């Protein structure tokens, strides 16, 4: 009797769907890892290169402390925790979504998006997870190292609950970054020719290195609620330092779920602008 791959059997309940999508994601991850391991030397070089650039970013910001004692209320050790958190959130976002975001413009312009849309899975899911850049895991590990070093130098001993809160907030930061990035890349459905639209994310998210509490007035509010860069650095760092605010966690969870949901609405709207260009 022939076996049937359950990943492609129409699923009915939420849990079936979830299991099906997780299996699909696992298959993508295995494929990407196998592809990277085909060129091991290149992968090792890329891992070191990405960690090196993450290190440079941390060094640049902390050079300020050669000249001043604090930035706002942030000492140099606290800033290490912030930079570690920023490195973790941004590089996890790059690891999971970089290649797909940069490829979406090409899919739309060449009409290859047809091949995605005709698959029996959610289109947004498939365009978002088609590639994983494992080389960006090196700076993620580096970020954890920097944050841990900062915490150790401060003499803090965060409890299990603090670490769990920190990881959840980092996860929310990744979800918010994904939603912002994906929504901005969708602009290509209207403009057509913006091949570099995915590059818009990098300079924007670089502003997350600035602690939001040193900002004033409307800029601070914008960084928290409009373009929520606070969740890509400051908010997780404050949670790990034990100075987080109670509303951060529920707001982060609601905002990240809401932002991903809104990006899905925008995706569906953008698809109405899509006219296949393939033969």
């Amino acid at each position, binding site marked *: 009797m022939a076996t049937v791959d359950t990943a492609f059997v129409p699923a009915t309940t939420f849990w079936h769907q979830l299991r099906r999508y997780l299996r699909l994601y696992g298959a993508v991850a295995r494929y990407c890892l196998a592809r990277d391991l085909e060129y091991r030397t290149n992968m090792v070089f890329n891992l070191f290169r990405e960690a090196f650039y993450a290190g440079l970013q941390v060094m*640049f910001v902390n050079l*300020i402390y050669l000249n001043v004692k604090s930035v706002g209320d942030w000492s140099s050790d606290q800033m290490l925790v912030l930079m570690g958190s920023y490195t973790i959130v941004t590089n996890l976002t790059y690891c999971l979504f970089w290649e797909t975001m940069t490829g979406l413009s090409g899919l739309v312009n060449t009409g290859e998006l047809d091949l995605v849309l005709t698959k029996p899975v959610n289109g947004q899911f498939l365009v978002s997870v088609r590639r994983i850049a494992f080389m960006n895991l090196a700076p993620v590990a580096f970020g954890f190292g920097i944050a841990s070093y900062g915490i150790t130098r401060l003499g803090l001993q965060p409890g299990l609950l603090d670490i769990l809160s920190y990881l959840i907030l980092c996860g929310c930061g990744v979800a918010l970054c994904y939603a912002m990035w994906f929504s901005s890349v969708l602009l290509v459905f209207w403009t057509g020719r913006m091949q570099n639209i995915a590059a818009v994310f990098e300079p924007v998210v670089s502003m997350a290195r600035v602690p939001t509490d040193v900002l004033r007035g409307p800029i601070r509010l914008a960084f928290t609620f409009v373009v929520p860069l606070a969740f890509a650095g400051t908010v997780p760092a404050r949670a790990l330092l034990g100075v987080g605010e109670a509303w951060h966690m529920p707001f982060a969870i609601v905002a990240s779920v809401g932002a991903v949901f809104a990006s899905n609405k925008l995706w569906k709207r953008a698809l109405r602008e899509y006219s296949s260009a393939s033969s």
Partner: protein
Amino acid sequence: MTTAPTNMVARPVAVEFPRSSFPGTRKFGRLLLASWQDALQYRLEGAVWFLYDLLPPMGMLLLWLGAYRPGDTVAGYDVAGMVQYYLGVIALRTLLNPHPEWDIAEKIAKGTYGQILLRPMSIVGYHLAGEVAWKVVRLLWLLPSMAICIAIFWDYLQTPVVSPLHWTAFAVSIPMGYLTAFFLKMTMGYVAFWATNTEGIFVFMISLEMVFTGNFLPLQAMPDWVRMIGDWLPYRYFYFFSTQILRGTFTEAELATGILTQLAWVIGGYIMMRIVRTAGIRRYAAFGG
């Protein structure tokens, strides 16, 4: 009333340039116009690249503003001086930082650089026209952005009070800063004659540039060993030198030394570019059409 026939083919409007006594000027003018038209098609792409010039230094400025206490002077800059420095860096970097290396490396890798080499015009002129055209597109985004920045930081700003000699030196340093960067980056682009994957090299060079041009921090705020290395590199003459002229701290002798050193980097960069290009062409085996 007459109506135009529907099958009429739109013909490009020829723009006549006056004949010039300078050889190559007319060709350059035409190429510049064509490059402008091309760049204007991609003005939204220009907006994205402009964010790379605008936001990283703006982030550093916001960090500095969080660090200053009333009356503080850091690395010779009071808070107003620091604001002016970063706004100057944003404006000058946007206008004076060319990127010919990516285009050169791509064409060499694809095998189409032969088409450029065989054209009856200056290769430098070809790349210069393309780069200057893109800078005009960047101006579209720079001007409104600077207007907003000036409104936000109005209280920190003042017209530089420097002598006419400083203003003259500043005006001279602008094109020379551009050419310093331009020839260095053309040389980098020609590395593609030997290396198949140049992206890693270019990204590494951008990191060096960020440090030594004073893009992240004014060089005075850097550790001594970084400044010592920077003294032997051309990066400080891209636009950092121009920002320092307007601070008015240079004596006449320092101004003259700075301008002459910048000129030496321009000439040295041109010679280096020619040497590397000539050596590269000897081993170039174009396979593109």
